[in-house]
């Protein structure tokens, strides 16, 4: 807690926790810098940043949800629904801010729905969000019979390649998303609630905390972030697509796990998630630059996850 405020806190977090991901990330960068031509070029670094931004925006709230001993399997499907909502609104001629608002609302509504399932109806998160996954995917497909929507305002795709403050706009959005999430998790009562919900829910209740309200807030926050991710996703494809984002929740989960957040007892580390996302991004990018056989790329994603967690597990064990 109060990590970045305190040098000792900072060092404790950086060195003691989950060194696995640091090792892996450093190794990956080193190997690719030597073997892959153009890996360290500015253009390529921009690529990695842009490619990782959407995943990070999903992985951040996923970290919070996992800290509450929850899970959100619906993120990918909801991103698709948001993307369709934004594209449809825009294609109907409404201005871009309206489209964004629609997207955020859809994401938020989906998140709240998850929150209600988990908190009020007490359905285990895995099952509840699995249900939401199906429903969101179904709705997104029904909207246009599975077609993507392309006639959207140019401003949306332009945002993806725009640069603000010398940074690609999606990267900037991701950085802001991190800052906000970090603040929420480590500096507010909301963050205390997140840790307490996973660490000792009973204690939180006895301290007069609202379990339901907090859970709904966490999932609702995730929904908002899905709204943002959905917008970036639409911008990236210049189109609304109902199913292209399916499965992204698992990438987000992998990133969170890579970053050293445990699935139990509210034990986690937000910055680790950033590292996890980067590791996945760097790996895929580097292998592409090397022209690695695709089937081996598939294997390597799995190995990355296994090795990083093995290193951490090994450390924990000894």
């Amino acid at each position, binding site marked *: 807690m109060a990590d970045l405020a305190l040098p000792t806190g900072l060092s404790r977090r950086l060195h003691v926790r989950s060194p696995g991901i640091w090792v892996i990330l450093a190794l990956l960068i080193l190997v690719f810098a030597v073997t892959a031509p153009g890996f360290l070029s500015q253009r390529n670094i921009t690529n990695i940043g842009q490619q990782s931004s959407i995943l990070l925006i999903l992985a951040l709230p996923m970290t919070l949800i996992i800290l509450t001993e929850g899970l959100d399997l619906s993120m990918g499907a909801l991103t698709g629904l948001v993307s369709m909502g934004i594209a449809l609104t825009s294609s109907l001629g409404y201005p871009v801010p309206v489209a964004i608002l629609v997207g955020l609302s859809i994401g938020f509504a989906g998140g709240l729905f998850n929150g209600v399932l988990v908190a009020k109806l007490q359905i285990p998160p895995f099952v509840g969000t699995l249900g939401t996954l199906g429903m969101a995917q179904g709705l997104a497909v029904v909207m246009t019979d599975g077609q993507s929507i392309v006639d959207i305002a140019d401003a949306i795709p332009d945002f993806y390649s725009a640069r603000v403050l010398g940074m690609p706009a999606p990267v900037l959005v991701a950085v802001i998303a991190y800052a906000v999430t970090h603040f929420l998790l480590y500096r507010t009562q909301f963050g205390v609630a997140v840790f307490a919900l996973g660490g000792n829910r009973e204690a*939180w*209740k*006895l301290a007069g905390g609202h379990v339901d309200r907090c859970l709904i807030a966490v999932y609702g926050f995730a929904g908002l972030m899905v709204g943002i991710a959905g917008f970036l996703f639409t911008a990236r494809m210049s189109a609304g697509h109902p199913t292209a984002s399916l499965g992204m929740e698992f990438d987000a989960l992998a990133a969170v796990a890579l970053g050293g957040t445990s699935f139990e007892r509210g034990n986690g580390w937000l910055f680790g998630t950033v590292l996890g996302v980067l590791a996945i991004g760097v790996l895929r990018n580097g292998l592409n630059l090397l022209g690695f056989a695709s089937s081996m790329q598939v294997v390597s994603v799995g190995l990355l996850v296994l090795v990083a967690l093995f290193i951490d597990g090994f450390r924990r064990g000894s």
Partner: protein
Amino acid sequence: MNAHVRPGDVSPDDVAIPVVSLKGIEKSFPGVKALQDVSIDLYAGEVHMIMGENGAGKSTLMKILCGAYASDAGEFFVHGQRETLSGPQDARRFGIAVIFQEFSLVPHLDVAQNILLGREPRGLLPGQIDLRALYAEAQRYLDMLGSDIDARTPVHRLRVAEQQMVEIAKALSQDARVLVLDEPTSALSDREVEQLFRVIRALQSEGVAMAYISHRMAEVFELGNRITVIRDGQFIGTKMPAETSPDEIVTMMVGRAVDMSYGREFCKDPGECVIELRNVSSTNGIKDVSLHVRRGEIVGLSGLVGSGRTEVARAIFGADAISAGEIRYCGGTYRGTPTKARDLGIALIPENRKTQGLALARSVRDNMLSASLGKTFSTGWFSPRRATEIARSLIERLRVATPSPARRAGLLSGGNQQKVVIGKWLNADSDLFIFDEPTRGIDVGAKAEIFTLIDGLVKQGKAVLMISSELSEIINVCDRAYVMKDKRVVGELDRSNLRQESVMKLAVHHG
């Protein structure tokens, strides 16, 4: 507060108005009538002891007082004013704070955040926490307790005793007018107990009303201004310490007289050596430990909390790996896993029954059989009927208060849960029993039963190693004892010099 009430001077017919009172409280859980028409008053400046057997309903009553449970019937008064109590928030509003029997700490938050959980000082932005104020304030309460814990340490890194201190600081920080302590000393060693008592006395002189649940008779008489006894969910009576005796209290609790001296015939000639540790160090931190236990004797393992007694037990049982030295079991070298230890006939009754002893979601029957499945069903076929029969006979033998063997273990009271863990190992028919704090949170009646049981075990020629933080138990029960300090064995005492002073001298001052 009430100027005419001095600490310790309260009597029921005093003119003073109780700070809080509960009247005619009823509470049922499915299948159990936990409380029936129980009333209790708490006056400013008094320490009101609540006593009763395991499962008598003490914790339930206190949970109702602090709003964690809603009562089925009954009334609640604050300063004579009738109020409703619909949740923990209400209780806080009335200045009621609790130190729970089970810890209510969040492992990955730090000490300060735990102390002020839910009441963090606000910063400028909505929901923001003023970290500076948070740490300053938390530190204040830690200082008050005379504790040297760093407010920034994550709670999961603290030792049990330290966690208990945080728990107490947390209650203190609520500036409560009523403080409920549910077995606060069961995880503390004598030194920390002393510290806690100092705090309690200070609070008492400030006029805080306290309800204090304990199974330790000594502290009941040391601290208590009044003693209320509950049996089977019913109010039995309230006594002033000066007017009663431990024996009377026990009779009230149990409904019959119980011999509390734990007097037993000490073992004169123990049999062959069952277990022997030679210069054992473990990955978990014990250093160069040598000890042995022979058939027919109860060997105590004493020391302060954190001295490494649990680690010795775990090393013997194979739960932690050994990094140096040798363990000999029945004459042969052995180094193993819990499975191997069990198969060789070693039993470990662990110190934390909820996390290490029981599967709380499973039935009493299933828990009781979990250590002896292979032995009981050697063909591999499991017979539910046979299992139920065995469980029933164990329930009877240990007098476990449960409506049926099918009841979920998590629904039993703490003491009865402990009996289930013991039952599980009785059925495994072991040769060496290691009891780690077997009487933690257990009522006097059950305690006597457990010691009778342990005595019965050694009479059958079994060997017992018993860890206890209650010196009186070590002294009254054991044939021999080792004392540990800083993860090492610092001394061995036999019956002739097994006395309070000699143990304390070794445990605290040695080296």
